């Protein structure tokens, strides 16, 4: 009997992309339900009543929300192509870096993106500090997961796409190949890996979306 796997996502959500990649890496067949965030479906709200967000994975009728929780679930429910390492210390470190990405890196990069002038300069300081930690973590490794893409690569994968887009919109270099050579190389390697590359959202659509978001945020802040 087949398993029913459904993924609620939006076309642009970097968190949902993590799940797309994981499902593809493990060669799991699934159905996609695209959501419009301004008009969420009753199914999504039923599956994720607490947060009402994407992604949500529905496996044989049971919903799981929160992308890092979903990734761990996928790794436990389907044992092929493991995403997390075996050793408990390494697993703890992988979870730590994924959490660091969400708790610190994302917010600090976003701050740089939505600010201007002196405020933007100031926002660069914590952003660069956070990126330097990631640079250190890549020492001696091709991917955060080692020789192959793993949990942390999927968790931080948004960097490989979004950074370039945001840099283009604000006209500011955030990941400089000279200052952050390992991170720069990882963004290239990860971004070009077959399963990853096939699933990036349409670039021009992303540029329009994030330009609009930046403009709206700046306008709201100046009121």
């Amino acid at each position, binding site marked *: 009997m087949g398993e029913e796997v459904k993924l609620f996502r939006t076309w642009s959500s970097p968190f949902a992309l993590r799940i797309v990649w994981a499902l593809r890496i493990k060669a799991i067949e699934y159905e996609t339900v695209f959501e419009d965030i301004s008009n969420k479906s009753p199914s999504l709200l039923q599956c994720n009543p607490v947060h009402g967000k994407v992604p949500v994975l529905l496996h044989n009728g049971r919903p*799981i929300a929160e992308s890092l*929780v979903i990734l*761990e679930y996928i790794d436990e429910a389907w044992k092929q192509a493991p995403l997390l390492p075996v050793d*408990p*210390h390494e697993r703890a470190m992988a979870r*730590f870096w994924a*959490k660091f990405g969400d708790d610190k890196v994302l917010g600090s990069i976003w701050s740089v993106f939505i600010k201007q002038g002196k405020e933007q300069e100031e926002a660069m300081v914590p952003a660069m500090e956070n990126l330097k930690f990631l640079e250190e973590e890549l020492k001696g490794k091709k991917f955060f997961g080692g020789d192959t893409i793993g949990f942390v690569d999927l968790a931080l994968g948004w960097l490989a796409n979004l950074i370039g887009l945001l840099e283009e919109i604000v006209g500011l270099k955030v990941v400089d190949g000279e200052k952050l050579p390992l991170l720069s190389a990882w963004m290239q390697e990860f971004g070009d890996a077959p399963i990853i590359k096939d699933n990036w959202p349409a670039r021009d659509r992303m540029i329009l979306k994030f330009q609009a978001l930046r403009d709206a945020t700046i306008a709201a802040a100046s009121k």
Partner: protein
Amino acid sequence: MAEEVKLFGMWASLYSRRIEIALIMKGVQFEFIEEDLQNKCPLLLQCNSIHKKVPVLHNGMPIAESIIILEYIDETWPDNPILPRDPYDRAMARFWARFIDEKLIWVSWDAYSSKEEDQGKAIEEACKQLKALENELKEKEFFGGDTVGYLDIAAIMVASWFGVMQEVMKVELLTEENFPILRQWVEKFVDCPIVKECLPHKEKMVEFTRVLLKDFLASR
């Protein structure tokens, strides 16, 4: 000979208590190193150079972030498991633990600390989130089922912090009237021998919190 397990923590930190409880439940011998948060020791700063916070568990290598440490403990000392076996149940436990740390506490802080004109709405939101957590208990004695598990340990925030904040901020969120099931869980949880042993006295926590928040309280 194996290096001793060390836990860097702080007496009033409920996040540190989470780790203590888990280690004691598993019968792991460890050394507790009390940190002065105004004057953190170099070893702690080395072990958690990124966040510079407690708790940090050191078992040959340092691990930071309390809910990550809890999983590490469960994987390293598998007897008396604190996480369920089934992947879906594990996912639910992780979801709700993150919910407590990333949503419930912040929403509740807003409710405790909001100005009078905004407080009604903030309280309503916090109660909505508390209700969602209470519903997760369902018919069970503990979040972990018949015994204390990972989510109960994570929910120590609910068992302790809410009571402390009620005294300090003079706002009650976790009322008997609205949350009879969650209140019942709190009573059972704090009554467990290991939890009782680890939780500092409420009066001490209240005093500590009053001092911590003294500038905030003075500005109101």
